[in-house]
C-alpha cells in the first residue's frame, strides 16, 4: 500500500479521502489555490502545497503544478476526487509518465468512457441500451439540427467531454437550438477545453438511476447496488437514495448486470458509476459512465458498509478488492441531501459568502461530510457545496423522518442555502410516496411562502431579546463576557441554593 498520496482536489471530498487515508496510516498531501489557503482540506492534510491562483484552470486544473507538488512531497499516488481532473485521461497519462499512480482507471478507459460518444458506441457494442441520439460528437449547428429532426424534440445538448451537469441544455423548440448550441459550446470549452457536443433524446419524466461498481486489476468486478438520483436542479443532483423505490429485483438484476458488463468490457479498475435513465415503463438507457468517486457515494457506503475510498486505494495499489460479490449485502436504506450555498428563490444561483455560523446534526444514523467551518468563505470560484448530510435507517420512511430531524438540527448562516428547500422536498407528498423523476423540483415545489405569523412573532421576540441583551453593532460576545440584563444562562446562583 502507498505510504503517502496527494489529493488533487479541495473541499469536502478532499477531506473525506484524507479521512480514510488517516485510518489506513497513509500520509496525505493537499494542494490548494491561493483562494483556498484557509480551506478545511489544507487544515486536515499532513502536508499542503500551493499550486496557483484562484481560477481552477490555473490551479486545480493545472496538471503540471499538481505533478510538481507530488514530486516535491514524495507522494506515490494521486487521488483526483470528483470534478477537476478526475476524468481527464491526459492527466492520468501524465501521472503514469511521471511514475505516479493515478487512483482511478487507466487513461485509456477514462478516455473511452469520459468521451460520451465513444462511451455510447462501447455500450452499443456490448448490448447495453443507449438513448436515441447522434452516434458521435458534433461540432456544427447544421448537423445538430439534422439529428434533432431525426430523433425528434425534445433533445438534450451536452458537452461531449462533460460531466457533473455542466454544459447541458434542453431544447424543446427548434427556434432555441442556435442559442443552446452556442451556450453549450462555450460552457464546455470553459470547463473542459473541448467544445464538441452530443445530441440525445430528452426524457422529461425519466428517473436517473445509477449503479456503483468496483473493480481491481485481478479481474474482480463487483457492483454495490443502485442509487436513485432523480431529484436534480440545473442537472445537478440534490437528493440521492439507496435503494430506489422504483427498482424492483428484476430491474435491479438487469441494471447491475449491465453495469458490471460495461465495466468488464473496458477492463475497468477502481470505483466507477454507470448512470442510466429509466423511463416509466422501466426501460433503461445508458447515460454515461463516471470513472471516479461520486459526490453521493456515502449513500452506498451506508447501505453496504464498504468504504469506497479504501477499495479505490486497494485497486490502485494493485491489490485485490477486500470484498467479493457474495459478501456484499444491502442493509436498510440511506439518503443524502446536498447542502449548497445557493439562492433557491433565484434559479439556484450560487450564493458565495462568509459562513458566519454552521451547526451540523449529530446522533443516531447521521453522517456529515462538510468542507466548511465557521468563519470560512464560500468562494465564487468553485462548487458551492457546503456539506452532505446522509442518514441511514431500516427503511425509506424511517430514513426520511431521520433526515428531517437531521435537517432540523442544521443551521448555516451567512450564505443562502437550500436547507429550506430540502425540508420542503422531504415533506412533499410525491417524495413521500416515491413518485419522483428528474423534473420533481420543477413540478412539485412552489416558491417560498411568507413567514407565518407564529414564526414572525418568534423572530420578533428574538430580536427584542437581542436588543435588550447587547449593545448595537455587536452580534457575538464571548460566553464569559455575558452580563445579566435579565436571567442569564449558566449564571445561576450556586451559593443561593442548598448544596
Amino acid at each position: 500500500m502507498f505510504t503517502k498520496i496527494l489529493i488533487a482536489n479541495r473541499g469536502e471530498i478532499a477531506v473525506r479521502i484524507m479521512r480514510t487515508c488517516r485510518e489506513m496510516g497513509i500520509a496525505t498531501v493537499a494542494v490548494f489555490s491561493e483562494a483556498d489557503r484557509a480551506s478545511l482540506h489544507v487544515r486536515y492534510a499532513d502536508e499542503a502545497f500551493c499550486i496557483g491562483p484562484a481560477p481552477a484552470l490555473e490551479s486545480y486544473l493545472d496538471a503540471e503544478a499538481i505533478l510538481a507538488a507530488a514530486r516535491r512531497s514524495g507522494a506515490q499516488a494521486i487521488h483526483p476526487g470528483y470534478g477537476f481532473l478526475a476524468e481527464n485521461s491526459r492527466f492520468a497519462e501524465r501521472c503514469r509518465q511521471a511514475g505516479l499512480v493515478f487512483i482511478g482507471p487507466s487513461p485509456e478507459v477514462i478516455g473511452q468512457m469520459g468521451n460520451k460518444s465513444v462511451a455510447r458506441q462501447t455500450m452499443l457494442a456490448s448490448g447495453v441500451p443507449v438513448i436515441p441520439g447522434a452516434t458521435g460528437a458534433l461540432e456544427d449547428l447544421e448537423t445538430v439540427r439534422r439529428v434533432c429532426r431525426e430523433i425528434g424534440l425534445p433533445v438534450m445538448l451536452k458537452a461531449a467531454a462533460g460531466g457533473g451537469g455542466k454544459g447541458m441544455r434542453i431544447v424543446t423548440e427548434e427556434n432555441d437550438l442556435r442559442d443552446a448550441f452556442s451556450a453549450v459550446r462555450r460552457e464546455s470549452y470553459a470547463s473542459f477545453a473541448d467544445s464538441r457536443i452530443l445530441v440525445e433524446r430528452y426524457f422529461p419524466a425519466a428517473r436517473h438511476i445509477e449503479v456503483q461498481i468496483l473493480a481491481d486489476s485481478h479481474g474482480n468486478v463487483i457492483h454495490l447496488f443502485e442509487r436513485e438520483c432523480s431529484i436534480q436542479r440545473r442537472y445537478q443532483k440534490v437528493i440521492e437514495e439507496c435503494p430506489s423505490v422504483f427498482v424492483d429485483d428484476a430491474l435491479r438484476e438487469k441494471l447491475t448486470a449491465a453495469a458490471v458488463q460495461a465495466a468488464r468490457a473496458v477492463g475497468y479498475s477502481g470505483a466507477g458509476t454507470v448512470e442510466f435513465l429509466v423511463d416509466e415503463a422501466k426501460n433503461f438507457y445508458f447515460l454515461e459512465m463516471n470513472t471516479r468517486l461520486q459526490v453521493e457515494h456515502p449513500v452506498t457506503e451506508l447501505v453496504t458498509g464498504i468504504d469506497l475510498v479504501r477499495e479505490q486505494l486497494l485497486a490502485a495499489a494493485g491489490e485485490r478488492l477486500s470484498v467479493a460479490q457474495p459478501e456484499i449485502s444491502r442493509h436498510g436504506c440511506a439518503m443524502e441531501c446536498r447542502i449548497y450555498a445557493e439562492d433557491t428563490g433565484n434559479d439556484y444561483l450560487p450564493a458565495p459568502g462568509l459562513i458566519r455560523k454552521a451547526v451540523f446534526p449529530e446522533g443516531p444514523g447521521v453522517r456529515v461530510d462538510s468542507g466548511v467551518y465557521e468563519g470560512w468563505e464560500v468562494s465564487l470560484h468553485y462548487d458551492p457545496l457546503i456539506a452532505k448530510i446522509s442518514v441511514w435507517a431500516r427503511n425509506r420512511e424511517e430514513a426520511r423522518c431521520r433526515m428531517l430531524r437531521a435537517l432540523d438540527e442544521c443551521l448555516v448562516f451567512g450564505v443562502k442555502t437550500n436547507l429550506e428547500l430540502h425540508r420542503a422536498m422531504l415533506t412533499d407528498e410525491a417524495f413521500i410516496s416515491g413518485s419522483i423523476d428528474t423534473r420533481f423540483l420543477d413540478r412539485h415545489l412552489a416558491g417560498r411562502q411568507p413567514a407565518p405569523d407564529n414564526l414572525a412573532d418568534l423572530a420578533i421576540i428574538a430580536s427584542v431579546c437581542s436588543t435588550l441583551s447587547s449593545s448595537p453593532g455587536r452580534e457575538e460576545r464571548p460566553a464569559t463576557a455575558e452580563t445579566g440584563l435579565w436571567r442569564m444562562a449558566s449564571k445561576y446562583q450556586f451559593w443561593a441554593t442548598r448544596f
Partner: protein
Amino acid sequence: MKREVQVDKKSYQVEYEKTAGGISVAVNGRCYQVDASALSGGFYSFLVNNRSYDAFVSREKESFAVVVAGRTMEVDFYDPRSRQPAEESKRSAGISRQVIRAPMAGRIVRFQVGPGELVQDGQGLIVLEAMKMENELKSQGIGQVREILVTENEVVVPGQQLMVIE
C-alpha cells in the same frame, strides 16, 4: 416600549417590556411572556408558555437576521417618528424603479436587451457567467432600460449595479 417592526417586509405592531420573570412581548395584540436565555455566539433559548424555541440572531444596528425553526427571517425595527423604511415609502408612492444588481461575482457574457428597450416581467436581461455556468438575470417587472452600467466581458462583484430599469 412600542415599536413598528417588519418581518420579511411585513409590518407588525410590537410592544415589549422587561418583567421580573423575563420579557413581556405583544405582537399585533398577541401577548407572550418570555423566559429568555442568552447563550453564547448569538444563540438564544426562549420558553414561551413552556414551549421551547431556539433562535440564532445576527444584528446590524436596527436590523436583525433571525433563524428560528430552520427559517431565516429579516427583522427590521424602526421608530415611526424618525424614519420610514426606504423601500416601503417608494412602493407607496407608486414609483417602480428596478436596479439590477449582480447576485454573485462573475463575468458579463452578453446583454439580452439594449438601452431604451421595453422589458416584460420575467424577461431575461443579462447573462452572467459564474462557477462555469451561465446565469440569466431577469426583470422583476415591466419597464424600460434606462441605463446599462457595465460592459460585456466585464468582471463584476456581488451587489454591483448592472442595469437600471424604470
